[in-house]
C-alpha cells in the first residue's frame, strides 16, 4: 500500500516544486536565517508565484502566435505584475542545462564572454536579411499543389540587381579562363563589405566541387573562392562554415576523378585544401560547435579505411598535419602501427604494375614523416615551454602571424597555438563523447613516442628531427619557422650561417655553405641523408654549386641538373622492432625535364619524387611553413 500511496502522490504532484532546502540556501546566501516553517511557507508561495507568472506569460505567447514560450514572454508577465524582470536569458539559442554528477547539481552553462574581444571585433555582420513577403500560389481552384512549395531557403534575399550582377561577374571571372580577372575577383571577394546577401549563393557554388572533381583547375579556383570568403572580414559565415568545410574536405579526402591520371597534380590541391581547412578552422571554428571533433573523426575514418586509395590517405595525413600537432598526436600517431603494415605492403611491391601505387605510397610516407616530425618538435617544445612557463615561451608567434600576412600573397597560415583548440570546441569531444566513437587516448611521453616512430622511420626521422638547433631555442614554433627562414637571410644571413649547427646523428653529412643567400630560398627539409652504415643509405650525390642552401636541417645532395639523369637508390631502415621488414629501399630513376629557367635553384626539385610532392612547386605557397609544400 505504501507503494500505491507513493504512486498517487507522484500523480498528484502536477507541478515542479521548489524545495524548502533551496529557499533556506538562498536565504543563507543573503545572510538570513530561516526557520523551517518560514521556509516552507516561502517555498509554497514561490511555487505559486512562479506558476502564476508562467500562466500569465502563456498569454503573451498565444498572442504572439508562437508555440514556444520565450523568456521574453515571462518577462512581460513579470513586468505587468510589477515584478523585476530577469535579465541575461534573451539569447535565441537554447541554454544547455547540465547536471553535475558529483553534487547532484544542475546548472545552466554560462560561458564567459570576452567583451573586449567582442567589442573590438571587426567582422560585424552586415546586411541582415530584410523581412519581406513572398507570394506563392499554393493551391489552384482548391486542387493540388500547382508547383511544389519546395524548400524555402533559410535566408531568402531580395537580391538587388547590382548584387545579382556582381554575383554573376564574380563567378564568371573566378571560374573563367583569365587568370588576371580571377585574381581581381578574388581580391574583391576578399574585401568587399556588401556581399553578405550573396554568401549563400557563393557557398552553393562552392558546394559544386563534387561535380567538377575531374577538373583540377576548377577545383583550385573554387578553393580560392573559399579562401577569399573566409578571409573577408565583413562576412559572418555562421553555419555556412559547415558547408565550406565539407567542400574543402571533399578536395582533401575524396579520390578525385582527376587523380586517375597520374600526370594531374592533385597532391598540390590536397595540400592547399588542407591548408585552407586549417585556416578555416582556426579562424572560424568557433562558429560551429563540435567542428574540430567532426573533422578529426572524418579524417580518422578515412585513415583507418584500407579500402580507400592512397591519395585519400595522403589527404587525411596532410589534413591532420594542417590541423596541428595535437591532431597528429591524437589521430595519426595511434593509427600508425596499423597503417604502417598496409603502406609497407605497397612500398614493398616492386612489380611494374604497382609502380604508380608505389609512387603514391611514397607520397603518403613523406607526408607522414613530415607530420610526425613536427609532432615531435612541437611536443618537445611544448614540454620545454611548460617547464619554462609558457608566458614568454613564444617569442615569435605574434610577429610571425603579422609578418606573414605582409609578405604572403597567398594564404596566411594561421598561427598555431601550442595548446588544444579553445575549450569551447574541444570540450564537446572531451566531455561529451555521447555516441562518438572517440577512442580512449592517453598521452604518450615524448621519448616513448620517439622510440616508436623511430622504429618506423629509422634514421630518416632521426635526420630530420635531431639536427635542428636546440628546441625552444633557435627553432621557433611552427608558424614562425618559415618567417625566420625568410627574414633572417635578409637581415642576418651570415649570422645564420655561423649559427648553423652540424647534424648530430647523420653519418655522412656534408653541408655545403650557403651560396646564394637568396631570401626567396626555400627552407630545406629533405632528409635523405644517410646515417649509420648498417641500416642505411648510400646517396651518391656530388655537392653541386646551385645547391647551397640549407638551414637548420641537413639536406640531401643531388646531382646537378646537367649531370644527366640521375638514378639512385637507398634504403632507409629502422629497427622494425620485430616487424618483418629490414629496411626500406627507395629506388628512383628520373626522366629529365627541362629545367625551369626562372627558378634555377628549384629546378632539381622536380626530379625528386621520393618524398613529398612530385611536380611543379606551387608558387603561391613559397612562404608556407609546411615542409610538405616545399619543393624538395
Amino acid at each position, binding site marked *: 500500500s505504501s507503494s500505491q500511496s507513493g504512486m498517487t502522490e507522484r500523480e*498528484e504532484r*502536477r*507541478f515542479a516544486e521548489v524545495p524548502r532546502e533551496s529557499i533556506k540556501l538562498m536565504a543563507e546566501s543573503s545572510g538570513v536565517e530561516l526557520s523551517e516553517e518560514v521556509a516552507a511557507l516561502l517555498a*509554497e*508561495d514561490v*511555487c*505559486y508565484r512562479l*506558476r*502564476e507568472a508562467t*500562466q500569465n506569460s502563456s*498569454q*503573451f505567447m*498565444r*498572442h*504572439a*502566435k*508562437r*508555440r514556444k514560450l520565450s523568456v*521574453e514572454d515571462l518577462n*512581460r508577465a513579470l513586468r*505587468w*505584475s510589477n515584478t523585476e524582470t530577469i535579465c541575461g536569458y534573451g539569447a535565441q539559442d537554447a541554454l544547455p542545462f547540465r547536471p553535475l554528477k558529483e553534487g547532484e547539481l544542475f546548472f545552466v552553462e554560462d560561458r564567459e564572454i570576452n567583451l573586449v574581444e567582442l567589442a573590438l571585433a571587426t567582422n560585424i555582420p552586415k546586411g*541582415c*536579411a*530584410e*523581412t*519581406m*513577403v*513572398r*507570394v*506563392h*500560389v*499554393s*493551391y*489552384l*481552384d*482548391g*486542387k493540388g499543389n500547382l508547383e511544389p*512549395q519546395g524548400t*524555402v531557403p*533559410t*535566408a*531568402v534575399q531580395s537580391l538587388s540587381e547590382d548584387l545579382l550582377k556582381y554575383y554573376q561577374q564574380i563567378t564568371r571571372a573566378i571560374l573563367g579562363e583569365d587568370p588576371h580577372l580571377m585574381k581581381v575577383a578574388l581580391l574583391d571577394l576578399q574585401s568587399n563589405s556588401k556581399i553578405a546577401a550573396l554568401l549563400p549563393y557563393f557557398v552553393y557554388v562552392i558546394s559544386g566541387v563534387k561535380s567538377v572533381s575531374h577538373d583540377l583547375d576548377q577545383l583550385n579556383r573554387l578553393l580560392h573562392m573559399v579562401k577569399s570568403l573566409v578571409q573577408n572580414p565583413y562576412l559572418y559565415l555562421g553555419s555556412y562554415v559547415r558547408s565550406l568545410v565539407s567542400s574543402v574536405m571533399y578536395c582533401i579526402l575524396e579520390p578525385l576523378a582527376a587523380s586517375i591520371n597520374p600526370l594531374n597534380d592533385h597532391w598540390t590541391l590536397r595540400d592547399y585544401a588542407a591548408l585552407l581547412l586549417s585556416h578555416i578552422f582556426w579562424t572560424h571554428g568557433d562558429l560551429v560547435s563540435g567542428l574540430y571533433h567532426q573533422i578529426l573523426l572524418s579524417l580518422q575514418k578515412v585513415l583507418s579505411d584500407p579500402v580507400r586509395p592512397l591519395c585519400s590517405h595522403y589527404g587525411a595525413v596532410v589534413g591532420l598535419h594542417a590541423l596541428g600537432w595535437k591532431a597528429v598526436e591524437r589521430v595519426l600517431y595511434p593509427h600508425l602501427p596499423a597503417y604502417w603494415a598496409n603502406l609497407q605492403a605497397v612500398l614493398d611491391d616492386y612489380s611494374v604494375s604497382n609502380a604508380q601505387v608505389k609512387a603514391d605510397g611514397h607520397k603518403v610516407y613523406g607526408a607522414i614523416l613530415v607530420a610526425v616530425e613536427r609532432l615531435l618538435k612541437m611536443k618537445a617544445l611544448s614540454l620545454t615551454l611548460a617547464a619554462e612557463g609558457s608566458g614568454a615561451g613564444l617569442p615569435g608567434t605574434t610577429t610571425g602571424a603579422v609578418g606573414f600576412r605582409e609578405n604572403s600573397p597567398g594564404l596566411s597560415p594561421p598561427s598555431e597555438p601550442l595548446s588544444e583548440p579553445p575549450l569551447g570546441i574541444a570540450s564537446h569531444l572531451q566531455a561529451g563523447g555521447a555516441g562518438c566513437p572517440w577512442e580512449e587516448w592517453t598521452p604518450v611521453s615524448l621519448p616513448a613516442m620517439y622510440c616508436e616512430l623511430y622504429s618506423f622511420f629509422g634514421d630518416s626521422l632521426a635526420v630530420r628531427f635531431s639536427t635542428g638547433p636546440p628546441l625552444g631555442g633557435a627553432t621557433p614554433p611552427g608558424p614562425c619557422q618559415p618567417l625566420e627562414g625568410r627574414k633572417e637571410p635578409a637581415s642576418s644571413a651570415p649570422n645564420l650561417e655561423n649559427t648553423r649547427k652540424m647534424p648530430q646523428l647523420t653519418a655522412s653529412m656534408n653541408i655545403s655553405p650557403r651560396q646564394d643567400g637568396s631570401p626567396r630560398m626555400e627552407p630545406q627539409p629533405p632528409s635523405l641523408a644517410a646515417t649509420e652504415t648498417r641500416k642505411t643509405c648510400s646517396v651518391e650525390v656530388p655537392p653541386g654549386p646551385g645547391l647551397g642552401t640549407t638551414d637548420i636541417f641537413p639536406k640531401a645532395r643531388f646531382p646537378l641538373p646537367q649531370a644527366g639523369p640521375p638514378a639512385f637508390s637507398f634504403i632507409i631502415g629502422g629497427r622494425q622492432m620485430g616487424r618483418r621488414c629490414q629496411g626500406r629501399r627507395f629506388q628512383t630513376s628520373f626522366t629529365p625535364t627541362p629545367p625551369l629557367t626562372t627558378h634555377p635553384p628549384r629546378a632539381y626539385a622536380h626530379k625528386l619524387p621520393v618524398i613529398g610532392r612530385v611536380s611543379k612547386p606551387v608558387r603561391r605557397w613559397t612562404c608556407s611553413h609546411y615542409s610538405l609544400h616545399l619543393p624538395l
Partner: protein
Amino acid sequence: IIRQKNPKKKTYYAAHVMTPLLSAPGEKMAAVQDAPMELDSEKETKPEILSDGTSNLSGNTASGTLSSPPLTAGGAPKQEDQQTLIAVLQFLRRNKLTESVDILRREACLEDQEDSQTLDGSGGGKGDGDGGDANSLLSRVSIASAAAPQSTLTPIPVKSEYDQPDVSVVLSAYSQQGDPSLYQVYYTGLKNFIESVLDCHRAELSQLFYPLFVHMYLELVYNNHETKAKAFFEKFSGDQECYYQDDLQILCGLTKKEHLKGNEALLDFRTSRFVLRISRDSYQLLKRHLQERHNNQIWNIIQEHLYIDIFDGMPRSKSQIDSMSGSFAGETRREVNKAKVFYGLLKEPEIEVPLDDEDDEAENEEGKPKKKKTKKDSMGSKSKKQDPNAPQQNRIPLPELKDSDKLDKIMYMKESTKRIRLGPENLPSICFYSFLNAYQGLTAVDFTDDSSLLAGGFADSTVRVWSATPKKLRKVKSAAELNLIDKESDDVLERIMDEKTASESKNLYGHSGPVYGVSFSPDRNYLLSSSEDGTVRLWSLQTFTCLVGYKGHNYPVWDTHFSPFGYYFVSGGHDRVARLWATDHYQPLRIFAGHLADVTCTRFHPNSNYVVTGSTDRTIRLWDVLNGNCVRFFTGHKGPIHSLAFSPNGKFLASGSTDGRVLLWDIGHGLMIGELKGHTDTIYALKFSRDGEILASGSMDNTVRLWDSMKAFDDMETDDFTAATGHIPLPDNSQELLLGMYHSKSTPVTHLHFTRRNLLLAAGAYNSQ
C-alpha cells in the same frame, strides 16, 4: 486635424454622437481605470453605465433572490437589507444587548417593520409560521417561472427551536457556508445522489459538480482551511470534465487566501453566478432530494453562487451539454439572448454605376469609353429593399460617403461582377503570403478590403506596410513642397505624392511593445495598431506617420478592428473590457464590460451596429453599439477565443479557439448551430468567402481548411420555437462539411482574406525551426 479640415464633419458628429455617452466620460474612465485595484472588494466593480443589465455577470451579487426578474431587481436589495438588519437585531436581543438593539433600531428607523416582523414571528403558530417562512425561503430559491408548483413541495422542516429561521439563513451569508470539514460529506452525498438518478437526468445534474467543486474549494481556501482544501481537491478533482483541466491546473496551485487576492478571474468566479441550464424534471428531482436530505449547505451554495436556468422540455444529452459548457461562467441564460438583434445589412447607398457590358477589351481597343450608359447596379437593387432584420439606417450615426468612397464602391461592384462563385465543387485558389526573415516575430496581419495593401505587426514593436501590388508606397510631400504645387491641376492627387519615397514597404515606428492587432480603415487611408504598451495607434497611410495614440486600456491591447464604415473602431485588451472609439475622440465612446477575463479579439458586425468580442474566459459576447448592452452571450468553447468572423449577410458568426474547434452561431436566434472539428491547434484566422458559401479557417497547425458553410447553415432549422429552449441538437458532421485541407510547409496561418473576386489569401511567418 480632421476637425479643422472638415468643419462640416464636426457638426455632424456633434449632432449624432450619442450624447449620454459623452456626457461624463471622465467619470467612466475613472471607474474603469480603478477597476483592477478594487477587484478584491466584493462589490460590483465594473462600470455600471455600460454594463448590460441582463448579464449574469453584472447581476447584483448581494441579492439572494434567484427568482427576481428584472422587474423586482430594484426592490430586492432593499428587502434584503431589512432582513439583514432584523436578523442582526434578533441576534443582539438574544445576546441581551438591549442597548445596542435600541440604538440600532433608532438609527435604522426600523420600528414598524421590526415590530411587525417580531409579531409575525412570535404571534403566529409554530406550524403556520414555519410554513410561511419555509415558503418564503423556498420562493427565494425557486425558479423564475411563477408556475413553479410550490404546493407540491414538502415544506422544509425547520428546526422548531428557532422562532426566527431568517437569522441563520442570513448569517450564513456572512460566515462560511456550513462546516468546511463537512464539505467532503456534502459533496459526496450529492455525488452519490446524482450517480443514482436515471441516465437522462444524470447528465444534466452532473453539471452541478464543477461549479460546486470550485466554489467549495475556493470557500475553503478563502477561509484559510488549506489542508482541507487540498484534501478536497485531491478527492474530487478527478471527477471534473476534461475541458476544465486548465482551470483545475490553476486552482490546484492556489491554496492561500492571499493568492486569491491577485487572481481576478477567480474572484469573479466567487462573486458571480455560474449558470446552469437544467430541464424542469431534473431540477425537481434535485430539489426534492436536497429537501429530503436537509442538505441545506449545498442548497445554500446553489442559491448563492449558481443560477439555474430551467427550461421545459426533454433533458439534454451529455453531448449537448458538453457542446455548450466549458466557459468560465457556465452557460448562457436564455433571457440574455432574447434581445432583438438587427443583424440585417444596411441599405447600400444608391450609386450610379457606369456598367460596361461584358466587352471591356473592345472598349480599351477603341481607346474611348463606348456606350457609357449608366444603370443601377444589380448588387444595389438587392439591398434596396429594406431588410426586415436590418437596423434603421441611422441607428448608429455613420460618416457620409466621400467621393473617393463612392469610387471605391463602384470599383467594388465592378470587381464583384467578376467574382467566382464558390461552392463544394468550386473551391477557391489560395495564395500564401509568407513573411520571410521575420525574426522579430510576426504577431498580426491585415489586408485591405481590395487586397492592395498588407500590414504586419511585429513583436519588435514595429508595424510594416507592404504594397501587395506593383504600385509602390509613396508619402505625401512635405508642407513646404506642397506649397509649390499647382492646386488647380487635374492630377493634383498625383502631384502631392513624393516620388522619391516610393518603396515596396514602409515601417511605422511608435509602439513600445509587441503589436498584437492591426486593422486597415475601409478607405485605406488609415491603419490601426494595438500593442502591448496599452495604446491603440492610428497611422496615416498618406504620410506614414502616427496621427493619434488612443490611451485607455492601460494594459496590453490584444486586438482592434475598424468599423466597416470607418470612423469607429473597437479594441479589447487585458483589462477585460472592449472599448468603442471614434477616430476623432481621444476617449472611448463605449466601454463594453462583462467578460471575466481578457478580451482577446474584437470584430465589427457588417452593419456596424454591433461589436463581437471573444475572451479568454471562453465566451463570446455581442454588444450593441447604440446602448452598450450585451445582446448575445455565447458559450461552448473550451479555450480562449482567438478568431471571430461574421458571415457577409450578418446573420451568422464563426468563432475559433485554442481548442482547435470552430463554432457557428445564429445571431438572430442566439443559438449554436454548428461545430467544426479538425484543427489540431489554435485557430488564429477565420474568414467567410465574399458570398458566404465557404468558411476558411487558418491555424497554428500550418493548415488552411475550407468548410461548407452554406450546408452548415442550411441544415439547421432554426426558428423562434427551437430558439425557446436555447439549444438545438447538433449533428456531428464536421467531416462532411470539410471541403479541403491545405498544408503550408512550415508556416502557421495568422490571417485569411478573400479578395473581391474570391481568391483566398493566407498570410503567416515562415518558421524555419
